[in-house]
């Protein structure tokens, strides 16, 4: 079942967050996690042999669940916003410390 794969993809992202020490790689991990989560959300609305929920297609009454699709639209846009802020932060971190490696960033919490 493909739903297993989506959850697994989410955990690949979480593993990346826990293990990576490069800020850009962490942002990518964050995106992978969100991607897996979004696919999982869509998959909760899937119904066998049902069609896209648009009335014009002439398949009345046999639709997949439209609510997860509406929710995933919101989740994607929120993910976009977070990623934009994260990338800008990464740029500022690079400007301040000259590096993207977490281990080389020192002195944030000390003063």
């Amino acid at each position: 079942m493909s739903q297993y794969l989506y959850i697994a993809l989410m955990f690949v992202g979480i593993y990346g967050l826990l293990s990576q020490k490069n800020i850009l790689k962490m942002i990518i991990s964050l995106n992978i996690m969100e991607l897996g989560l979004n696919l999982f959300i869509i998959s909760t609305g899937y119904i066998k042999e049902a069609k896209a929920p648009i009335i014009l297609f002439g398949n009345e009454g046999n639709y997949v669940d439209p609510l997860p699709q509406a929710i995933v639209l919101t989740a994607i846009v929120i993910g976009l916003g977070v990623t934009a802020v994260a990338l800008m932060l990464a740029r500022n971190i690079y400007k301040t410390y000259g590096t993207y490696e977490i281990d080389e960033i020192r002195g944030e919490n000390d003063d």
Partner: protein
Amino acid sequence: MINPVLLIAIPLLAAFISVFIQKLSWVLLFGVSIFTAISGFFLQKGMFMIGGWKPPFGINLMIDDYSFIIIIVINLLFFLTLLSGMWELKKNKTILMVILAGINGLVMTGDLFNLFVFLEIITISGYILAASSDKYYSVFKYLVLGTLGSSLYLFGIMVLYGTLGTLNMADISQQFPNVSGSVKIISLTFVFAGLGVEAKLLPFNAWVKGIYGNTTPLTGPLFSTVFATGAIAVFGRIFGQILVPDSTLIFAFIALGLITFIFAETSAMASKKLRELLTFSSIGQAGLIITMFMIGGFYAALIQLINNAFAKTILFSYATKAYKSNGDDTINNMSGLFRKNVMMGFGFTVATLSLIGLPLFFGFYAKINMLQSAFALNMWIPALIILGSIIEGIYYIRLLVKLWNPGEEGQESSELAQSQFVIKNGFSLSLIAVLIGIIFVVSGIIPDFLTENIAKAADSLSDAATYLSTVLGGI
């Protein structure tokens, strides 16, 4: 009577307008904040549908006694925060208006996914405001943990949706007891982990020190009171009323809350800097309040939530202002500082004494009720609460002595040892200090008004049946 949706719509409208009329944004921000602070008292109670779609199909706002009192407290605190940080606003005015709308929506909403959206609004605004301290790496840590937390929360509620086919809080709380144990465990764990990030519970609070420890007079009170109160209030709503955990999980949640409390208070004991001390104290209080919500002591939890929120406003305002004026907040260098600003010293002292729960102050009622409801359960929870409170009392009293008394501990005070620190632009701070000091003294002597309203709020939280009938049977 004011329709509660206005508390979300008007700040947002003002935020959008302020983008293209930048000169007015100062007026808009203060106008909106005063509007919400006053209209909180005149809020219409009941269930409000958005777009006219009845729950569980549409989204609804829910104003019962619980969200009513939280809205009043949050909007007042927001206004006090603005006063404290009025020299720090700079370009953050639009974001502050969005935060005001977001935090009101967070407390009022009756839909789990809508709650996620509002949670994201305030966390993203939080990242941006926190970045004004130039500690970008700490903000990045906050961002990663915050996003991880909200993703876990979303996963939790989507598991619930896949099981129950609804996202409405009332509908879910009605069907939740009949759900199979395995789905219960998954959804509760993930929702708890997701909200735990914002509520600063132990495994998820690695971000707090970097953010709270580097706050400005604007972000300090904002994060430690407005955000914290909103997040913990949502925590109480969800785990006290909507998704009530069963006995095994609740044990784990209480344990986490208590561990957070004890661990944070011990760390605060060792802190040398004022903001760091207050940070750990905030974490500890969050752990304590969440423990109280989990063991069912809603009344005690609410009193302590409000007590802590008002106390932390003045504590954080003072600490961040001292840092802003002098570039340092090491406690040893601040000895005798209150002698220069007696008004602020008064507010700070009263707030601290109330926070640790001395008699004659409002916090006393919180501690008494807390112990009462904890003793009703078993012995080791109140024992740990008392232990933590004693630690907290020790370091706060030590702090007060230090700040009033110039010179080394145990020696005669001398003017020579008085701190060279000054507080710049201290007028608004004195105002807040006196206001909050008066609130604490008056509510300590005549607690009836506040305690009655809080008791009503606690009742409405434990009375899930009324909530259900208001939302699902309404109109």
